[in-house]
C-alpha cells in the first residue's frame, strides 16, 4: 500500500504477480524433481522396504500416540499471541498518523497488557516450564 495517495491497484497486483510466480516456480520445481525421480527410478517394493524407518529397529505398534494436554496449552498460547500480533500490523500503520499518537499507543498497550496478564498467570501456574 502506498500510503496517502489514491490506491493504485495495478502496482498491488504487480507485486502479487511476483509472489504468484515464485509459488508457481516452486510448485513446478518440486513437481519436476519428483516426476523425474519417479520416471527414472526402478520400483521394486518388498515388505521390508515399505516398513516405516525407525532408526533401524523394526517399528512397533501404531504411529498414533495420544499426546499430553500440555501441548494443547502451548498451541493455544500460540493462537493467543498470533491474534495479538495480527493487531500490531494495523496499529503500526496508523499510530504515527495525525490524530492518533498517544491514545492509540495506550490502546494497544492496554490490549497487550491484558494478554500479558494471561501470560503471567500461565507462568505462575507452571505452564511455561517443562516438567
Amino acid at each position, binding site marked *: 500500500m502506498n500510503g496517502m495517495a489514491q490506491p493504485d491497484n495495478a502496482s498491488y497486483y504487480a507485486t502479487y504477480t511476483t509472489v504468484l510466480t515464485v509459488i508457481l516456480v516452486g510448485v513446478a520445481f518440486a513437481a519436476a524433481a519428483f516426476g523425474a525421480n519417479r520416471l527414472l527410478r526402478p520400483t521394486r517394493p518388498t515388505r521390508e522396504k515399505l516398513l516405516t524407518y525407525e532408526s533401524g529397529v523394526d517399528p512397533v505398534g501404531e504411529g498414533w500416540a495420544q499426546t499430553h494436554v500440555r501441548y494443547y496449552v502451548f498451541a493455544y498460547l500460540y493462537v493467543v499471541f498470533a491474534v495479538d500480533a495480527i493487531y500490531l500490523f494495523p496499529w503500526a500503520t496508523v499510530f504515527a498518523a495525525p490524530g492518533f499518537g498517544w491514545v492509540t499507543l495506550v490502546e494497544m498497550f492496554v490490549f497487550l497488557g491484558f494478554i500479558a496478564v494471561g501470560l*503471567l*498467570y500461565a507462568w505462575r501456574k507452571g505452564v511455561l516450564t517443562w516438567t
Partner: protein
Amino acid sequence: MTSILLAQEFKSPTIEYAKVAPLLIVFGVAIVSVIAEAFLPRRFRYPTQVVLSLGSLAAALVVTVGLAGSKLLAAEGAIAIDGFTLFLWGTILVMSIISVLLLAERAVDGGVTAFAAQAAALPGTEAEREAQARRLEQTEVFPLFLFAVGGMLLFPAANDLLTMFVALEVLSLPLYLLCGLARRRRLLSQEAAMKYFLLGAFASAFFLYGMAMLYGFAGTISFSGIAAAIGAKTGVDGLLLAGTALVAVGLLFKIGAAPFHMWTPDVYQGAPTAITAFMAACTKIAAFGALLRLFYVALGAARWDWQPMIWVVAILTLGVGSVLALTQSDIKRMLAYSSIAHAGFLLIGFVGVRDHISANTSAILFYLAAYGFATIGAFAVVTLVRDASGEATHLSRWVGLGKRSPIVASVMALFLLAFAGIPLTSGFMGKWAVFSAAWQGGAWPLVVIGVVASVVAAFFYVRVIVLMFFSEPAAEGPTVAVPSVFTSVAVAVGVAATVVLGLMPEPLLQLAARAAQLVG
C-alpha cells in the same frame, strides 16, 4: 465506515469513562483477580476472590445507580447508556452479587466450595481423590464469573452488531467453562459444558452469519444505521429477512426459546447449581436486553417481517416449556423447563407490540427482575437438600420435605408459587404486566395461549408443593444442610423480593416504566 477511507478524517476516539465505569470496574477487577490467583498463596485465594468479586460488583452497582438519568451513546457509539441499559445493569449486578454468595458457599459441602477440587484431574482417578483429600478448591471460578458478568453488562448495552457479538462471546465462554467445574457428579457436569459449548458455538456462528447479512443489507452494523436503511428501503429485503432470522437464532438460543432450547435441561442439570442459578437469571436478563435493543431499535421498522416468526417461537416455547416440565423427575430439569416456559411468557410481551414499545419494554424489565430473584432463590434452595452423593435433585427425594424441614420447604413453595404466577407473588405481577402489554399490542391470541400455558405450568409447580407437604417422608430421606450466611442471605433476598414485588410492585413498575426509553 466510508468516512475512514480518507486519512485526514482520522480522529482519536473518545470514551466516556465515567459512563462506562461499571463495565470497566467489573473487567478491571476480573483482571486483578486473575493476578491474585497467580500470585497469592493458596490459603489466601478464596477470601481474596470473594472480597474482590463482591466489592467490584457492589462498586459497579453504586456507580450504576449514580448514572441514573444518563442518555447517550458512549465509546464512539459502541454502547448505549440509557434507562434501559442502566435498569438491566442494576438488575444483573444485584443478581450477580447474590450469585457470588452462592458461589462462595462452603458450609453445605463440608467446608469447600461446590466447584471441582482440580478441574484437570479426571473424574474417578487417584489424582482427583488426592485433590479432594487435600481440600483443594478451584478459585479461578471467581475471575471467570466476573468475566461473564462483564460480558452480560456489555450485551444489552451494545449498540452495534460487532460489540454485541463480542459481548456474546465474553459472556458465553466463561459460562461454558464454569458449567464443567462441578465438584460432585463431574461427568454430568463435563457433559453439560461440552453440550453447551458445541451448541453455543453453533448459535454464535448463526449470529455471525446473520450479522454479515445485515451488514450486506444496510452497509453498516450500527443499530441506528440499520434502522435508517430499513426506513429508507435502500437494501435488499432478502438479506434483511435472512439476516434477521439468523441473528434471532443466536439470541433465542441464549434465551432458551424453543426450538433452540435443547441444551437447557442438560446444562441446567449438569452445571454446578450456583452457576445454574446465575445462568438462569443473568444470562436470560442480558440476552433479553440484547434481543429487545436489537429488534426494537435496529429492526423495529421491519416489525411486520419478524413478528410472525417470533409468534411461532413464543408458542413453541410455551408448549415445550409447560408440557415437558410435567414429565420431569429431577428438580433441576424441571426448573430448566420452567425457565423455558418463562422465556415464552417474556416473548409474548416482546412480540405483542404495535406502536409503543415502552409499555412492552417496561413490562419485560419488571418480569425479568421478578423472575430473576425467584430463580436464584429456588436454585439456592436446591443446593441445600443433600444426601451422601451431593445434592438430592430427584423429585422422589423431595417427598415429605415439608415435614422434615418446614422452613426450607415453605421457601421453595413460595418460589414455586411465584413461578406459577399466583396472586400476591412477584410472578403474578410480572405475568400481569407482560400479558396486558401484549394484549394492548394486539397479540390477544398469544395472551390466551399464555394463560393456558400458565395453568398447565401451575400444575407441575403445585405437584412439587404437594410432594413436599402432603406425602410421608421416606425413611432415608435427604438431609437439609445448614448453610452459612452466604446462602442464607441469597435465599432471604429472593424471598423478600418475591413477597415485596408481589405486594408492592408499584415502585419497581414505575422505575421500569421510566427506564423503558431506548436510545436509538
